[in-house]
């Protein structure tokens, strides 16, 4: 009964999404406000129905209802309850339902927090989101219904993919999807503006917090995925340039460009058509990512179900959504206008550089991801593109981007004096070089790329510090208390500084892991030792340990540093009962400056035990990794995300302030005389 209710709710939702897609759009076109006012309640009802359906599926999982095909394929009685709930998005059907839930959540959020927006704009935005929901609902109902029954019911479920039985996987997909789908808000803003034809700086101000919020979730989602790969796949790597990873990285790159471009559009009225294009592209790339992951056109370590029917549906959806919006863009964007002029040396120019570099980087990653597919489609053979390509292309693009990141925030809008900029940044450049030289002198042997990485990281920190000091220093000798000056810095500005420092932390992590990591695969018998630097790893043997739905061989490795014990790591090799899948569970001792990473490879098979792993006595291949500063990679991402969160919650975006200013909202869009504040 419960699955049928969930299924029924989806059909109702389909109807509501159609109403949401059609009525407010017609209302906005013909000026009928009673049709436009349908938008908000419809969006809320839509969210309610999809949420209800989602809960129905979750209840079916919690109750082990193996008469539902999707539950039987992705769960098991032995699976602990928390993983039974998260198994809801462990397979294709549930993932799409989660995507849909997020989409309707964002629509409901827009309905809630848009009271200050013109009624026609809200109507159009929500209508566009209604169409998106309609497409995805149709996709679920036609090709990916999670409520399909299995008759006769399975006595036992096939179990959740063991790779996904992990706390990181519990929150990674929701976060990533929040980001992916959150970009649909910026997309809908852009399409609504193109339809309505009024694209001014107040439009950019309304779109900014939504975009930044989506970017926040996307950043966290990608970082979680990377962290999951690091400790769950057992290879010690944190990014593989795998097609599925790239699929999440592409929208991130464009969303990052969009955040910066929106700043220009809001403050200066420039880059309008470019900003709109980026908003369309960011969500288009999210859809493309969904297509790549869900259709199976690319082979990937993530290897999701391959079903050409689903692929065809998503491709058709993709063509309709992206084709229509880009067609609309080609038709309407030429009338948008150019906005305020700016000099060659100005903040606009630096942000333009940022945009170009990010979009080119995105293009390069897209090319590398799709190149094998394109060659195959033209019958030119099968190839695969690996990390060497991506690294060769990516580093030269990021280096100038980081350079601009230091200069941009200090440059004035419209026109900046180059000598003045050089003077203000001399201190930052000098101290970055000195800091790099000090590290090189103290440690040495990190090579050119290592030195470049350090220089970039120090350059960011030093330039952010310069910016901060200039903002805190009282002008012309007036004595304003430091705290008071600090309070005057807008929250969005603080967010930007924090996010930029996050990039520096991230670069430090990447550089130091790259240059300082030690990876060793050794055969170890009980009592064997291996040394990395000051650390001595001693293998104490392995023994059988039962888990709830798996059998594990758990190894014990004592680690000492200079003779003093540090910790004992317990990596596991698990065999899951239902699927007979073998999983490697790495054990990591996390530290601020290094990770000690141990995972069990293969047992050395003893002929006398006839092929069975001789746990407790046998030797194992043990992977021992020393990873300096590796956690800074995710720390950096987290700091970036926090910066984004602060920027998105700046008070000038919040309702109360907006209402106070509502009367002035329709002022001429370009505010030339506004002093330099937040970007």
């Amino acid at each position: 009964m419960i699955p049928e209710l969930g299924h029924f709710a989806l059909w109702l939702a389909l109807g509501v999404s159609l109403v949401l897609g059609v009525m407010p759009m017609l209302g906005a076109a013909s000026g009928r406000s009673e049709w436009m006012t349908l938008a908000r309640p419809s969006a809320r009802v839509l969210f309610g129905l999809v949420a209800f359906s989602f809960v129905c599926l979750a209840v079916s999982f919690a109750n082990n209802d193996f008469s539902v095909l999707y539950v039987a394929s992705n769960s098991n009685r032995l699976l602990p309850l928390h993983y039974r709930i998260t198994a809801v998005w462990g397979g294709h059907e549930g993932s799409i339902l989660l995507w849909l839930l997020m989409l309707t959540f964002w629509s409901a959020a827009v309905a809630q927090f848009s009271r200050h927006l013109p009624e026609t704009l809200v109507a159009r935005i929500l209508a566009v989101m209604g169409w998106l929901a309609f497409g995805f609902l149709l996709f679920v109902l036609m090709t990916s219904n999670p409520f399909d029954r299995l008759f006769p019911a399975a006595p036992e479920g096939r179990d959740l993919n063991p790779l996904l039985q992990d706390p990181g996987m519990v929150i990674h997909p929701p976060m990533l999807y929040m980001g992916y789908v959150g970009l649909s808000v910026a997309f809908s803003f852009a399409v609504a503006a193109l339809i309505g034809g009024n694209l001014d700086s107040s439009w950019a101000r309304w779109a900014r917090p939504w975009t930044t919020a989506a970017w926040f979730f996307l950043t966290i989602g990608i970082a979680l995925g990377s962290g999951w790969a690091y400790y769950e796949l057992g290879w010690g790597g944190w990014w593989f340039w795998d097609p599925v990873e790239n699929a999440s990285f592409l929208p991130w790159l464009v969303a990052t460009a969009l955040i910066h471009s929106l700043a220009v559009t809001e403050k200066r009225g420039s880059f309008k058509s470019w900003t709109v294009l980026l908003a369309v592209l960011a969500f288009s790339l999210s859809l493309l990512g969904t297509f790549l992951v869900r259709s199976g056109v690319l082979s990937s370590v993530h290897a999701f179900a391959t079903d050409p029917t689903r692929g065809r549906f998503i491709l058709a959806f993709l063509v309709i959504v992206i084709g229509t919006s880009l067609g609309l863009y080609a038709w309407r964007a030429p009338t948008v206008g150019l906005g305020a002029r700016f000099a060659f040396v100005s903040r606009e120019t630096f942000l333009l550089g940022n945009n170009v570099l990010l979009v080119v980087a995105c293009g390069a990653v897209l090319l590398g991801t799709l190149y094998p597919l394109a060659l195959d489609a033209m019958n030119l053979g099968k190839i695969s593109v690996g990390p060497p390509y991506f690294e060769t292309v990516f580093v030269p693009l990021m280096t100038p981007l980081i350079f601009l990141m230091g200069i941009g925030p200090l440059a004035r809008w419209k026109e900046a004096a180059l000598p003045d900029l050089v003077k203000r940044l001399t201190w930052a450049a000098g101290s970055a070089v000195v800091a790099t030289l000090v590290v090189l002198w103290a440690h040495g042997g990190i090579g050119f790329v290592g030195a470049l990485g350090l220089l970039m990281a120090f350059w960011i920190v030093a330039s952010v510090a310069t910016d901060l000091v200039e903002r805190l220093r009282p002008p012309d000798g007036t004595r304003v208390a430091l705290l008071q000056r600090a309070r005057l810095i807008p929250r969005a500005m603080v967010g930007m500084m924090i996010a930029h420092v996050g990039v520096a932390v991230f670069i430090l992590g990447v550089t130091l892991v790259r240059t300082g990591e030690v990876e060793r695969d050794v055969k170890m018998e009980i009592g064997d030792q291996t040394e990395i630097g000051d650390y001595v790893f001693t293998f104490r043997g392995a023994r059988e340990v039962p888990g709830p739905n798996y059998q594990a061989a758990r190894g014990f490795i004592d680690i000492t540093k200079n003779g003093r014990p540090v910790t004992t790591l317990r990596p596991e090799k698990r065999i899951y009962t239902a699927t007979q899948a073998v999983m490697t569970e790495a054990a990591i001792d996390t530290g601020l400056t290094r990770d000690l990473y141990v995972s069990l490879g293969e047992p050395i098979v003893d002929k006398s035990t006839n092929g069975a792993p001789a746990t407790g006595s046998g030797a194992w291949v043990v992977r021992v990794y020393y990873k300096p500063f590796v956690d800074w990679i995710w720390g950096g991402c987290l700091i970036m995300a926090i910066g984004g969160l602060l920027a998105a919650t700046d008070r000038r975006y919040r309702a109360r302030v907006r209402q106070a200013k509502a009367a002035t909202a329709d002022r001429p869009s370009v505010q030339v005389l506004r002093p330099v504040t937040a970007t």
Partner: protein
Amino acid sequence: MKRVGFLIPLFVFVALAVVLAVGLNRDPREVPSPLIDKPAPAFQLTRLEDPNASIALADLRGKVWMLNVWASWCVACREEHPLLVAFSKKNLLPIYGLDYKDQRDDGMDWLTKMGNPYQASLFDGEGRVGIDFGVYGVPETFIIDKTGTIRMKHIGPLTPDVIATEIEPLLKKLNA
């Protein structure tokens, strides 16, 4: 002219969509054999049922034939076998078996129980010839033409679909 620039994103996307549409109908895991249109590796192997009689590649010159790699330990071969037996009854071409990394007795036993679609089975106990042919999963099937050139390779069990859409048209072409 100015408007044309705004069309570029749309054009790029259309090109991309075409690539995706074509790519959708392909299997990313399907790896083509480098041996296609190359001469089949030479071999001289004993017959499965008779260690004293041998067959060489040269003996098969002048006819279009099929080489089916199988083994008694192979579960997928068991699944494929009835189809192969049925196909052999159509007498479209001679089918030779390559009993791969197997025991002679097990192999003969298997053919007795399951039916024998093969003109003859070559015994490759060590798997040497299999390696020359680039076999990495059993069953695999090759079609070799009159000049001893490999014209087709199929990895995994044959299906009625593969026979109807790939093998039979190819045979028409080769025998024409």
